[in-house]
């Protein structure tokens, strides 16, 4: 993975010193709440319902074992011994003390980590496919380009006070496991006929209260032009994005209002005008960054059948929680953060430290954080999988449910977030209890549930096969359900099935919905495929069949 040189280190160290001074001035009354807000947000610090929340960046989801160990240590020392992994490859601490945050950031800097621009109206942590570098269907490894973008974005002098937040995701695979088409900019790695690397560029995607799918602004952007083209998009957005209404300030609204054709022309004009003074990426620069992402020292191995003759529990884990690897003899193994009874994405300090040690033994000391709020050991020898499973099971991290209905995405909700309308974590528990039977889960197959506690859509409910949105009705928590959303290579927004339901009925409503699928599915059809074939109507008709309280 990428290693800081002394310049990178100097930058994060100076950033910590700056924030230490800003925090001191705030506590001394020299900075007002409003003045400090703009500064703390750009260092990942929110003031939440109970306490500050610190969002730590895990750029493109890649962690070295010493970094995960450090996160565990920080969570134990400064928080309540756990952290929450998010859909955008960040780790959130829910209970740090404001005055401790400079020390936390200093600790992070010792392992080449930071919380720079993880919140606020600026360019956020750049995310990538968790299968980067190991996927069988990959055009190229997206991580070197993510690192180049990370450096470009850090304290970009022109784009640190944008109209609104700005998120970029990069994928090297058509499967788009990074949900890039619902980002402000999505970059899909491509090769031209000569084999040169470039990007198909999507712009204007985003969720929140006005969900939109990104549109193609450029079919093929040559790699040397990457940063100058990003500069051009950001410059047009910085100038013309709305600043008068926070709900209309994302780039998606600008793209929609002028239309993609005109927006493309504006960017093209700006880009052409700026190219002289924005030198392209030099090959040596790209090579330097790429050199950090060379494949580890794989052994020459054959694929083997490790499941045969083992207990059914291991076979289930192998089937659901591991994925093929481009190198023979290896597999990627998920660390499920979706154990029933646990908040999706939460991990304890002890688990972090144990997984760090495990990664050192079996996966070249690297851990990946996924968009679906799990971790992944990317490079496990197939012959080690049984031992890995046993160890993960002992840690409570081997729930064999990856890709099933209980591998759901959920934001922290009302329990932590001051924006939320709804206690997503309670609903998650309710669903886990309702769908506790693994055989039933396996029969339902691949279903993605995504749940947000409010219309800001941190839980990506619009693109869940089943989306759940918490809404407030006269002080009570109700839930609106959508069906048919998806990302992963076919991005679509879900359709609302009808009136929202009270909290106590969410899980039973979902059960009625999946029963429609079970009744209607044809051979081998996944939930989302059945939905696309039969449409929302049969679900609508039967989701509410047995209760009349819906309003």
């Amino acid at each position, binding site marked *: 993975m990428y290693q800081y040189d002394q310049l*990178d280190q100097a930058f994060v160290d100076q950033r910590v010193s700056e924030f230490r001074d800003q925090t001191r001035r705030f506590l001394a009354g020299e900075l007002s709440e409003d*003045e400090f807000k703009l500064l703390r947000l750009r260092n990942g610090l929110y003031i939440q319902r109970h306490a500050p929340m610190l969002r730590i960046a895990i750029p493109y989801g890649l962690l070295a074992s010493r970094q995960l160990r450090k996160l565990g240590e920080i969570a134990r020392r400064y928080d309540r011994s756990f952290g929450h992994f998010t859909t955008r490859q960040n780790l959130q601490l829910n209970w740090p003390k404001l005055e401790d945050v400079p020390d936390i950031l200093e600790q992070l800097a010792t392992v080449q980590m930071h919380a720079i621009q993880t919140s606020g*109206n600026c360019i956020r942590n750049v995310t990538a496919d968790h299968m980067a570098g190991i996927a069988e269907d990959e055009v190229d490894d997206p991580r070197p380009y993510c690192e180049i973008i990370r450096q470009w974005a850090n304290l970009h*002098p022109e784009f*640190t006070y944008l109209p609104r937040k700005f998120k970029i995701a990069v994928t090297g695979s058509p499967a788009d496991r990074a949900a890039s088409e619902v980002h402000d900019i999505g970059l899909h790695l491509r090769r031209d006929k000569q084999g040169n690397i470039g990007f198909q560029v999507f712009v204007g995607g985003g969720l929140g209260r006005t969900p939109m799918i990104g549109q193609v602004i450029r079919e093929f952007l040559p790699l040397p032009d990457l940063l100058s083209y990003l500069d051009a998009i950001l*410059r047009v957005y910085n100038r013309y994005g709305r600043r008068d209404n926070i709900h209309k300030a994302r780039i998606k609204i600008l793209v929609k209002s002028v239309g993609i054709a005109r927006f493309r022309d504006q960017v093209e004009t700006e880009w052409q005008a700026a190219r002289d003074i924005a030198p392209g990426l030099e090959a040596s620069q790209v090579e330097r960054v790429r050199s950090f992402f060379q494949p580890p020292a794989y052994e020459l191995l054959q694929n083997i059948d490790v499941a045969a003759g083992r207990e059914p529990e291991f076979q289930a884990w192998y089937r659901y929680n591991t994925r093929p690897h481009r190198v023979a003899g290896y597999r990627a193994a998920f660390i499920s953060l979706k154990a029933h009874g646990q908040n999706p994405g939460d991990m304890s300090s002890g688990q972090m430290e144990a997984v760090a040690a495990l990664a050192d033994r079996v996966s070249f000391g690297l851990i990946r954080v996924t968009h679906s709020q799990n971790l992944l050991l990317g490079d496990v020898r197939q012959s080690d999988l049984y031992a890995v499973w046993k160890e993960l099971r002992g840690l409570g991290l081997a729930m064999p449910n990856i890709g099933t209905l209980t591998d759901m995405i959920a934001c922290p909700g009302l329990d932590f977030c001051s924006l939320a309308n709804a206690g997503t974590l309670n609903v998650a528990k309710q669903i886990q209890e309702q769908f506790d039977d693994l055989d039933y889960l396996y029969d339902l197959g691949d279903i993605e549930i995504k749940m947000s506690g409010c219309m800001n859509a941190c839980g990506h409910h619009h693109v869940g096969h089943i989306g759940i949105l918490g809404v407030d009705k006269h002080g009570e928590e109700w839930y609106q359900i959508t069906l048919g959303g998806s990302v992963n290579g076919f991005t679509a927004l879900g359709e609302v099935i009808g009136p929202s339901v009270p909290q106590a009925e969410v899980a039973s409503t979902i059960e009625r919905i999946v029963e429609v699928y079970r009744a209607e599915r044809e051979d081998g059809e996944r939930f989302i495929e059945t939905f696309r074939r039969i449409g929302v109507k049969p679900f609508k008709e039967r989701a509410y069949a047995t209760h009349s309280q819906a309003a």
Partner: protein
Amino acid sequence: MRRILRRREVVEDDWRLAGEEGVDEAGSPALIVPFADFRTHIAKWRAYPGRLGVRLSPADAAEDLAEDIQRLSLVAAEFPTAGEGRGYTQGRLLRSRLQFKGELRAVGAGVKQDLLFIMARCGFDSFELAAGQKVEEALKALDRYSVAYQPAEPVPSIRQQRYSAAG
């Protein structure tokens, strides 16, 4: 007289703002004109005998000064709040596209010490600090970082340093 931070020195501001109380337009040796006024009375301002500056509001297009840029000794960009970010783009455009060599001044209630480093990197070399800002702290704030990733003055970019060190 206003005190401003100009090229790292605290100086009395020798510029006057057209339309401000007590300002004699004809008698001022150095006058800043709001962009809208400048555009509306372009012939008058082109004939102005003294030193001339223009003050941009956030929504104004810096490129519209292209024809007159040689004539201007100062351009001021307004940061009415600390969260208003369009002035950064105006600064970059003035310096890089219009090749403006005169005084580029940040003005408004958003001009605070914690933003001076990025303002300077967008080409600003003078700062009319918001009320309550301490000049000594502001001066120090300009040197908060010895490194930066993007190619911009005055700190050389990490890219440049990395490759000059290697080569």
